[in-house]
């Protein structure tokens, strides 16, 4: 006569109950009482099964891994918080509103760097999103599958190119291009503040363009995967209703893939916010806020890369640490915002992400 304690499910439940209490055991018991044939074990083996450590060990170890990743992020935050203490004490909140960066007289303010980071990222996304999503739609929907696969492979290779190489390409190709084309625009529209000022070739616009080139492959690669994962039934249904190709994509495919595409956009944004070497080569490294797209600027990551190794003096170092803390904070806020947006987008769409 089989009793619950000697069945496999009963064994697992008994084992888990020993370690984690009723919750886990109950779930395990429920899970394995679905219509599955139960094996009956002889009492000796059943007793050994009751002490099985495989699953609990797996739970513990993977929980430990997850917590360690969170722990690492927490450690970064704590370390930055402590090392920026001198600067926070000296400047308080005005650090985020001041524009001077003077290591000689120890007057520091992060505003130009925050502006540069956000402005270059905004320019990058404004160019990369339409370009990237458009390219993904083309590669997923319009082009024959084999060609699409080949082109997507090439695009994915671009994701792996180191950023220093992008920086060099930017310096030798993009800068002269912006200088000539931008020069023409500045001559025509020079009265508009957005295009005012001398065009050096390096500046906010060049950095934004370079970041767009660096982030488009992310968006294309991920969005294409997401678009390909949309079930054919969606497209078939739209086409059966008489929709054109564009209408199918617009109404049947894109809403389904919306979460994934948003996810890829935020991944691209994360890269743009943190990009250091490529940006510092083409942005002009001038901590100043100007309205013009052609003006040089500075970003938080660039100033850290440039000035950290030679920074002598506690307040200077502490100010750089505070800039790192601000960058960390902005990254967290942007990513949290991304998560919330994706969650909000997911719910009304009703389609699985």
């Amino acid at each position, binding site marked *: 006569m089989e009793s619950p304690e000697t069945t496999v499910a009963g064994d697992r439940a008994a084992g888990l109950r020993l370690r984690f209490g009723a919750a886990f055991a109950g779930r395990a018991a429920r899970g394995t009482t679905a219509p599955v044939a139960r094996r009956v074990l002889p009492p000796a083996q059943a007793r050994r099964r009751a002490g099985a450590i495989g699953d609990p060990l797996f739970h513990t170890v993977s929980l430990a891994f997850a917590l360690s990743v969170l722990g690492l992020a927490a450690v970064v935050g704590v370390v930055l918080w402590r090392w920026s203490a001198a600067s926070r004490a000296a400047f308080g909140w005005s650090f985020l509103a001041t524009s*001077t960066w003077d290591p*000689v007289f120890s007057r520091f303010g992060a505003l130009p760097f925050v502006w540069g980071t956000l402005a270059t990222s905004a320019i990058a996304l404004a160019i990369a999103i339409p370009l990237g999503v458009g390219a993904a739609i083309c590669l997923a929907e319009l082009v024959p599958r084999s060609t699409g696969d080949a082109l997507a492979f090439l695009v994915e290779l671009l994701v792996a190119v180191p950023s220093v190489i992008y920086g060099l390409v930017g310096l030798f190709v993009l800068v002269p291009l912006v200088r000539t084309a931008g020069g023409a625009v500045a001559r025509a529209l020079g009265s508009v503040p957005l295009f005012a000022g001398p065009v050096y*070739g390096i500046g906010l616009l060049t950095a934004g363009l370079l970041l767009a080139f660096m982030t488009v492959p992310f968006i294309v690669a991920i969005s294409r995967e997401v678009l390909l994962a949309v079930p054919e039934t969606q497209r078939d249904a739209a086409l059966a209703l008489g929709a054109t190709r564009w209408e199918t994509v617009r109404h049947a495919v894109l809403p389904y893939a919306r979460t994934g595409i948003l996810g890829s956009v935020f991944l691209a944004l994360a890269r743009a916010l943190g990009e250091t070497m490529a940006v510092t*080569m083409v942005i002009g490294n001038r901590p100043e806020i100007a309205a013009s797209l052609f003006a*040089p600027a500075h970003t938080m990551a660039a100033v850290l890369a440039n000035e950290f190794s030679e920074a002598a003096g506690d307040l200077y170092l502490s100010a750089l640490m505070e800039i790192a803390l601000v960058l960390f904070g902005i990254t967290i806020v942007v990513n949290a915002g991304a998560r919330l947006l994706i969650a909000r987008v997911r719910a009304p769409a009703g389609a699985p992400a």
Partner: protein
Amino acid sequence: MRIVLLMLVGVLAAAVPGRAAVLVNGAGATFPYPIYSKWFDEFHKRNPDVQINYQSIGSGGGIRQVTEGTVDFGASDGPMTDEQLAQTKVPILHFPTVLGAVVPTYNLPGSPRLRLSGDVLAGIFLGRITQWNDPAIVAENPDVTLPAEPIVPVHRSDGSGTTYVFVDYLTKVSAEWAKSVGTGTAVSWPVGLGGKGNEGVSGLVKQTSNALGYVELIYAVQNELPYADVRNAAGRWVRASLDSVTAAAAAASADMPADFRVSITNPPAADAYPIASFTWLLVPSRIPDQAKGTAIKQFLEWMLGDGQSFAKALGYAPLPETVVALERRALARVAVGAP
């Protein structure tokens, strides 16, 4: 299995760096790294049981590490300030090793040979002089046709000894610069674009017409960049060269302070190049480890003697004899062994 273990032990034993009885660690300035690495290599050849390891992490890093005692000696392109010296556990001594110079480089059609005085340089980097055909520049360069174009100043975006020397000079020749900008390895530049490293500045200058930047002399010579003559305190126009730089140091050695923390920019000598500087090794005044201390003192002794002969080949100006003599006497201040 045993064979694998034996092989592993054999490989590990062979991988242990050869028989250096004494390992000395140093860190600091990037500017003198080529000559330092040549010196440490040559010294090791002559003293095989001494291995000196140097990491060029920047002058700021060198000062921090030697203050905390994590390295046996440091190196810096700028002398430590009084505040920094106050924070050290053991007093740190400065020993000049070689000389470097900074030259103004520019991008003008035809690459004419220009003369730029300290006033003009300060004016350009303060944003007071904005056009190449400004009367001040034209007055100093009567036989050059200067374009009626805006100057694009280029400076260093990263903290560096090169910047330190250049702004130290500008502080001395311009009261306005001293008041509004000051001296440091990184300053708040009133105008100009920032390039990372000598290569960043020269890259920007080469790419941007009508640009004016500053780079190390060695860098300008090796990369064949055009650079300007600068007027020294004696009123002569001097072109930067290893000899004019050594002359600048010789001029300063007359009033050399005992701790060698001196700025030799804008010296009064007739043939001295005004934008020059020492680079220093930072050595604690007491080194508890007997072997390391002896090794460091032996190295310094050698550096002041035979070592100086390697400097010119690598583009560094050697120390003048007067300074070498003063340093030899100062070596006695480094105490070795436990007190």
